[in-house]
């Protein structure tokens, strides 16, 4: 491996150290009388006119003691949260290819400038349509864009996340079968490599879930599908490619068989990053699909939301979409609530609208050629990294071995675990010391000791080399200095949390500061930590 290119980031990898502020909780820096902001004062004219502001409120409804919120100056509130932001490994700081299945890509700041315009920030959702023609136009235009990308007939952006879009699609499938007079169709078929929400969301809508497992090619066989189809089949919820990056080439046969059995087919395209301009949901015969704007379409992941889920349907299913839809009569845009078959509201108002504006700007900046360049480069990057990763001893890519993958790969460190006793989760914790992180897998771990990597189109060859170099180093260390990994992290914002019972034991867990104080007392943390310190006795500090 001495022929590998040396990354210019090699030194970053070796010497990285995250900010470590040991920042106290706001409650711990609170001082009586301090204030962070003064609200607009009540004018004398109002006070004179009405007297006691709470005069209409029965006295027993009034709070007798003020809420014990922290009292902190603005100086310290800002500093506190700036420090916390520095202790957060946002994608902007790193080549964030480890959060696979999430398509973490570049989030252009120009899109932030656009959505922070008062022309969007200060729009009330119930304003008269004449005053919101601009935002309605963007909602309408972006629907046309997603129609072109997917071949579907209509979209809604109301779901406020990808899973919410899956739930929306499940609701539409349900409404369709009821409307057709076949309410007994209550079974949804999915695959184990499809995101957990493809099982959980239809189950939340009342469906029974049947899960198919892959054969050695990495996807379920047509026979496996046939065996579970029946007059109870309501639909198929499937990703393709799934988390292994392997595309099921028989997907059209799957769709055909489900249709023949009377079911609908729902394509989870939360991550469509390898397929833009290559494959369209409608061309494969799907009845519904969804995109995550915070994955494929470049809107930020926002520390875990708001994202946005865009649900797309065929013409036949369009009447069931949530209300309202956005329509255009040739001169003006308007909201249509008059849709009697609609499943109703799936979220308040029109969803996380700012993300539609961001996604619209992202697509406009790239155009059709650019979107294809996104897909092709994401796939190129992934296969480059795959080649580099497989050169590292102990790393394998189960299923379809020796074959290419689309935009991500689920690797396995099983051999390393067998030989060193360390788990992929241990290596993931140690990765924090190199300014990186990686996702293992959704549960259950079908691929043993998993590590799922998705390099998207945003990263350079040097970034990919650096990532491979990190894995190489982790693997080497696992064999030569396993205690470094066991006791990691060393260079992150905090140290190892050795006692997970604090998160599992109802007597000990503390989901708020007040719960912590009740269960453990103010000084309990110090003593518990000292206890841990004494018992671990591993002080491998830099």
């Amino acid at each position, binding site marked *: 491996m001495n022929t590998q290119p040396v990354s210019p980031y090699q030194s970053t990898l070796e010497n990285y150290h995250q900010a470590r502020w040991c920042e106290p909780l706001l409650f711990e820096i609170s001082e009586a009388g301090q204030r962070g902001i003064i609200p607009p004062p009540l004018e004398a004219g109002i006070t004179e006119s009405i007297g006691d502001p709470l005069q209409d409120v029965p006295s027993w409804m*009034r709070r007798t003691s003020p809420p014990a919120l922290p009292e902190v100056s603005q100086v310290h509130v800002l500093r506190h*949260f700036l420090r916390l932001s520095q202790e957060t490994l*946002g994608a902007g700081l790193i080549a964030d290819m480890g959060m696979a299945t999430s398509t973490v890509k570049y989030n252009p700041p120009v899109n932030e400038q656009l959505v922070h315009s008062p*022309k969007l920030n200060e*729009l009330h959702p119930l304003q008269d349509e004449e005053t919101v023609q601009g935002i309605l136009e963007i909602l309408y235009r972006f629907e046309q864009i997603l129609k072109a990308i997917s071949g579907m007939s209509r979209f809604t952006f109301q779901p406020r996340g990808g899973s919410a879009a899956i739930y929306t699609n499940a609701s539409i499938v349900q409404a369709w079968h009821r409307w057709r007079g076949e309410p007994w169709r209550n079974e949804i078929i999915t695959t184990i490599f499809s995101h957990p929400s493809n099982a959980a969301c239809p189950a939340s809508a009342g469906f029974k879930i049947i899960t198919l497992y892959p054969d050695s090619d990495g996807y379920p066989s047509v026979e496996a599908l046939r065996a579970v189809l029946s007059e109870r089949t309501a639909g198929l919820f499937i990703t393709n490619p799934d988390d292994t990056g392997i595309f099921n080439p028989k997907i059209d046969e799957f769709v055909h068989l489900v249709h023949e059995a009377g079911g609908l087919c729902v394509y989870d395209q939360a991550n469509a990053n390898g397929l833009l301009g290559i494959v369209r949901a409608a061309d494969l015969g799907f009845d519904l699909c969804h995109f995550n704007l915070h994955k494929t379409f470049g809107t930020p992941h926002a520390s*875990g939301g708001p994202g946005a889920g865009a649900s797309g349907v065929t013409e036949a299913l369009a009447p069931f979409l949530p209300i309202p839809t956005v329509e255009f009569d040739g001169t003006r845009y308007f909201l249509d609530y008059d849709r009697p078959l609609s499943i109703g509201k799936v979220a*308040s108002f029109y969803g996380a609208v700012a993300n539609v504006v961001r996604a619209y700007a992202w697509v406009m900046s790239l155009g059709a050629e650019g979107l294809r360049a996104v897909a092709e480069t994401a796939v190129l990057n992934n296969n480059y990294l795959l080649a580099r990763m497989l050169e590292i001893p102990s790393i394998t890519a189960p299923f379809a071995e020796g074959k290419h993958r689309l935009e991500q790969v689920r690797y396995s460190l099983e051999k390393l675990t067998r030989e060193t006793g360390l788990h992929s989760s241990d290596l993931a914790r140690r990765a924090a010391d190199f300014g990186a992180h990686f996702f293992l897998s959704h549960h259950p771990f079908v691929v043993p000791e998993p590590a799922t990597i998705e390099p998207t189109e945003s990263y350079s060859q040097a970034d990919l080399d650096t990532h491979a170099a990190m894995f190489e180093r982790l693997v080497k260390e696992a064999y030569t200095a396993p205690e470094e990994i066991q006791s990691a992290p060393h260079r992150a914002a905090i140290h190892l949390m050795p006692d997970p019972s604090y998160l599992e034991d*109802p007597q000990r867990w503390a989901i708020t500061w007040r719960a912590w104080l009740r269960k453990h007392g103010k000084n309990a943390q110090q003593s518990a930590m000292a206890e841990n*310190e004494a018992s671990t006795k591993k002080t491998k500090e830099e």
Partner: protein
Amino acid sequence: MSGENKEIAYPYIPNALPHIRDRMLQRIGVKSIEEVYEMIPERLRFKGKMDLPGPLHSEYELRRHVEAILQKNTSAAEVISFLGGGCYQHFVPAVCDEINQRYEFLTAYSGRAYEDHGRYQALFEFASMMGELLNLEVVSVPTYDGYQAAATALRMAGRITGRKHIIVSRAISPDKLSRIANYSSPFLKIKVADFDPNSGQTDIKAVERLLDTETAAIYFDTPNFFGCLETGINHLTTLAHQAGALCVVGVEPLTLGVLRPPADYGADIVCGEIQSLGIHMQFGGGQAGFIATRDEERFVMEYPTRLIGLLPTRVPGEHGFGEVAMERTSFLKREGGKEWLGTMANLWGITAAVYLALMGPQGMKEIGEGIFARTSYAIRKLAQVKGIRILHLSSPHFREFVVNFDESGKTVEEINALLAQRGIFGGHSLRRHFPEMGESALYCVTEIHTQAQIDLLADTLKEILRS
């Protein structure tokens, strides 16, 4: 590779440059990217060209294009707006925007509790401060919105009690009711309890009539959709408990600097919106919800969301955080988990944490009083206008109230059109969902409204209704 996009250097796609692409392909022994795509059979491939507008490669061009479209909007900040109904124009402190635009928070996702320590701490502090307002020890990370929080809270109540019916007050947002119905239908039967037309509050007699041994929960909001405080909260909670049901209450956090929280009356699950806490309206994009309960295992184990817990690290003086009881969730159990877990609204939770930290107890008291006072003032001023009747006058109001125009002979739309000509967004018409209220509109005032603006509204209405 498609595209003779020979010379285009895409600023967002470093490896799209032909010479880099070729170097990488060579390194992995592949002639073209097409070789990789061969795993997708030809018959499944899209042969056409996506019919897309653009591209606007230049950032300036892009900006000009999008801004020109957004320019067609007239924002609430350019006029005097009295719109409410679930989304509110409040003052947003600069520090809130500064923090939620930090690229570290904006672009983080679901890193581990080590490298994303700051994100975990901010979300734990969000829950902890909400816990102080609510007098409860367990608070979720933000849900998609308050509708989802209510819908999930009721599903939780169904699972906790093992019962199948829920009684929902009709004095909540009709859209929220629609979401609750959509989300509950396979598992829970919804019975809607009407409100008392005089007080605008949930009709306790109607609730009593619907209550039985199959009732899992009673649900209402306070303040409710009409801005009325539910002064029967004690009674409703007791009724629920006597029937072996839970009481689930939606509450506005901005009231809790001056009002006792629902838990003080025995509410079992409390939920609501946090958009009021330092988050811009964004045409409804700024919504996010919360769910809170007592710290009892039977409640905690029914949450579908992430819950952040505090724990020690091996170094004294360091706070660590992690995720509590993840076995509950669909991430570990797929369809066997509680509902589902997904990307919801964490950035708004961090923003609300900044807001609550800035406000503190004194700020929350002042803003609560300020809104109560302005609401009372606006009600009095408008009540004096000929042709206007304020409904539900016997109830205490926070932020919103219903204005009826029946005596004026004009429709809400006519009135709002005339107000708009004078730079005022009038209240939202209630006709579609509450036809029995006739020509009524929901008006809203917050801490940003001045006495002069409220007076101007009254004077303008006087003028419009006279003509």
